């Protein structure tokens, strides 16, 4: 049984994992880079090991250093979180070789799902619908033209090793094919060291809906329903919710069954996510499998009533699943808002810096997962995600109202952030009506970039406050004697006589 877990990550997810470990009575080990000595995960852990310089390649991506910290600390398991080494097959393998439990799937499952073509073929064999497209990688321009003629325009050219929108090119006209192919290959080669690409039908106005699954070492697989992740900006998710406002219970059942089939086909163990792309007629296609915990896992935790990190640890310990499919239900509704350190007024430029003040919302239905504290520094080296607000309500409408209330209470100063932008999303008609696709942000740009008007007297209050703060500062900066002079003529003459002596 696992007794001590090294968390090979930082930020909110490292703290979140350690919280569950602490509840289970497990010891926690943090690793940290130069930039993170004072980070929350170091403060929260029982032990902490320095693993290198600030850039991720020299620390959080450094397998040797992390394994040596694990060995030195006597950790019997490593939780990789998300990002960094979480989907690195080599890391999973190396942990195995050192006799340390990797809390996640086998190297084989990671590799298989990491290669988009292999994953696609595996899914087709398992009867899981995939986006219409080529069965394998594209070898030549002719191959591409032939394939595109078969499936019809528009199509998407995608890197086999891809992710995060890199090595992807949309083709809407036949004349664009060759150029797009060249661009996708070159970007894929630079980003992943592999220029293999394949071609899929381009789904217009799609939804991005994923299913959470859990699979134990005994062949049991369950799904924990879906998450709707269509509110994205540049392939970056911003808001997720569950249940999806567009799914019917019939579709949900079907997709759940396919998610389980997909997981079984991958011989998968642990927590994972099957991502589907869904068109407006609710046709759905396997997109990819994320072989790790997702950023947005808390909305599933809230609605289904599980602690996914504890489930991961139980699975790693070889326990059979704690649930049967038929006992799981979606209770109410949950929304997650991702709070990023970025400046929406300046093309969402990242905004590292020092947090001067933070007020987090609380009360009924509110959960906040974060890692920043007053005085903490958000480094330039890592992800701009600084907190996640997870809100539960009995209905979708109540959840939206509550999320707005929570966003109003949420205040982070010192670093620019997207809190007001999130509030605008929660006010947008398309969002409120549950009528949105991955194009939502673009289509609502104008509305989303507006500010609530604060009112005339409100603006005057701002003027007055800044002015009085300024006067107080001037007052403080003035030497004591000077203040006395200004305020009190009696004192003045007294001071003068002293000076005369």
């Amino acid at each position, binding site marked *: 049984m696992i007794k001590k877990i090294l968390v090979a990550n930082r930020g909110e997810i490292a703290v979140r994992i350690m919280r569950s470990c602490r509840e289970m009575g497990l010891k926690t080990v943090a690793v940290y880079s130069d930039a993170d000595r004072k980070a929350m995960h170091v403060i929260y852990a029982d032990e902490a090991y320095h693993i290198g310089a600030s850039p991720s390649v020299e620390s959080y991506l450094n397998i040797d250093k992390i394994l040596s910290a694990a060995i030195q600390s006597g950790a019997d398991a490593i939780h990789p979180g998300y990002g960094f080494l979480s989907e690195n097959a080599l890391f999973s393998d190396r942990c195995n070789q050192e006799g340390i439990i990797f809390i996640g799937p086998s190297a084989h499952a990671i590799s298989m799902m990491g290669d988009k073509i292999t994953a696609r073929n595996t899914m087709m064999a398992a009867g899981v619908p995939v986006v219409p497209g080529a069965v394998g990688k594209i070898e030549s321009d002719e191959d591409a033209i032939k394939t595109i003629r078969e499936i019809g325009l528009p199509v998407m050219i995608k890197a086999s090793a891809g992710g995060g929108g890199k090595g992807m090119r949309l083709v809407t006209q036949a004349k664009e094919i060759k150029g797009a192919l060249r661009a996708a290959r070159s970007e894929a080669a630079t980003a992943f060291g592999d220029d293999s690409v394949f071609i899929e039908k381009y789904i217009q106005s799609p939804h991005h809906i994923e299913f959470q699954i859990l699979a134990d070492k005994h062949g049991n697989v369950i799904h924990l329903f879906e998450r709707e992740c269509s509110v994205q900006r540049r392939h970056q998710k911003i808001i997720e919710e569950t249940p999806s406002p567009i799914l019917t219970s019939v579709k949900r059942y079907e997709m759940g069954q396919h998610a389980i089939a997909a997981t079984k086909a991958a011989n998968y163990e642990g927590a994972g996510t099957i991502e589907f792309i869904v068109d407006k007629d609710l046709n759905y296609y396997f997109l990819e499998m994320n072989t790790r915990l997702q950023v947005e896992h808390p909305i599933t935790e809230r609605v289904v009533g599980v602690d996914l990190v504890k489930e991961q640890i139980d699975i790693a310990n070889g326990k059979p699943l704690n649930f049967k499919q038929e006992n799981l239900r979606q209770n109410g509704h949950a929304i997650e808002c991702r709070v990023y350190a970025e*400046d929406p007024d300046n093309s969402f430029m990242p905004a590292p810096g020092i947090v001067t003040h933070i007020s987090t919302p609380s009360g009924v239905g509110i959960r906040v997962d974060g890692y920043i504290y007053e005085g903490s520094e958000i480094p330039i080296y890592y992800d701009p995600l600084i907190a996640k607000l997870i809100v539960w309500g009995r209905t979708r409408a109540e959840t939206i109202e509550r999320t707005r209330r929570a966003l109003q209470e949420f205040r982070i*100063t010192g670093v620019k952030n997207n809190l007001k932008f999130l509030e605008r999303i929660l006010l947008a008609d398309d969002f409120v009506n549950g009528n949105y696709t991955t194009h939502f942000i673009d289509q609502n740009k104008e509305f989303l970039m507006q*500010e609530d*008007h604060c009112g005339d007297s409100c603006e005057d209050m701002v*003027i007055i406050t800044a*002015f*009085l703060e*300024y006067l107080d500062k001037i007052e403080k900066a003035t030497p004591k004697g000077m203040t006395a002079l200004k305020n009190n003529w009696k004192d003045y003459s007294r001071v003068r006589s002293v000076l005369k002596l």
Partner: protein
Amino acid sequence: MPYEVKVNKRTANVELLSREGHHVLIAVDGKEYNLDFEMVGKGKYSILHNNKSFNVEVIPGHTIKQYVAHTSKSTFHVDIVDAESKYLENRFKGQEDEGESTIVAPIPGRVVKILVNKDELVEAGQTIIIISAMKMESEFKAKKPGRIADIKVVEGQTVDARQVLVIIEDAIEHS
């Protein structure tokens, strides 16, 4: 003594009429406000005006006269204008161009790539330098044609916000 306070695009005249403890009488553009004004934290104020409750948080800017102010709904940039500020403003009027020939880091980050060499002539819109912060790369371009007069940083270097990266001189003047 009346002051001018700039908030976003508005310039308001502000005069403190009296202040005793948390009772403040103050005029903004001639409109008098009788306020219950209390500090409830560093830079955080609770204001009651005709029983309406306002909360304003002010954060010092780059100079003692600049503030960023937050209400529950909006963010404001506030400048206090006094005699000194006015003098400086007048003195530098018409010289706004001055800053345009330097590229300054708007955020802290790491220099990924410098795409020009010293003394090189550049076009308006040409990418000069790439800065990376939080997994995102930003390109910075020349605003007008010119000559690279100085490069103040090297690739891989960590830079602070407002740090000068590259200085571009007017090419015509010096050619």
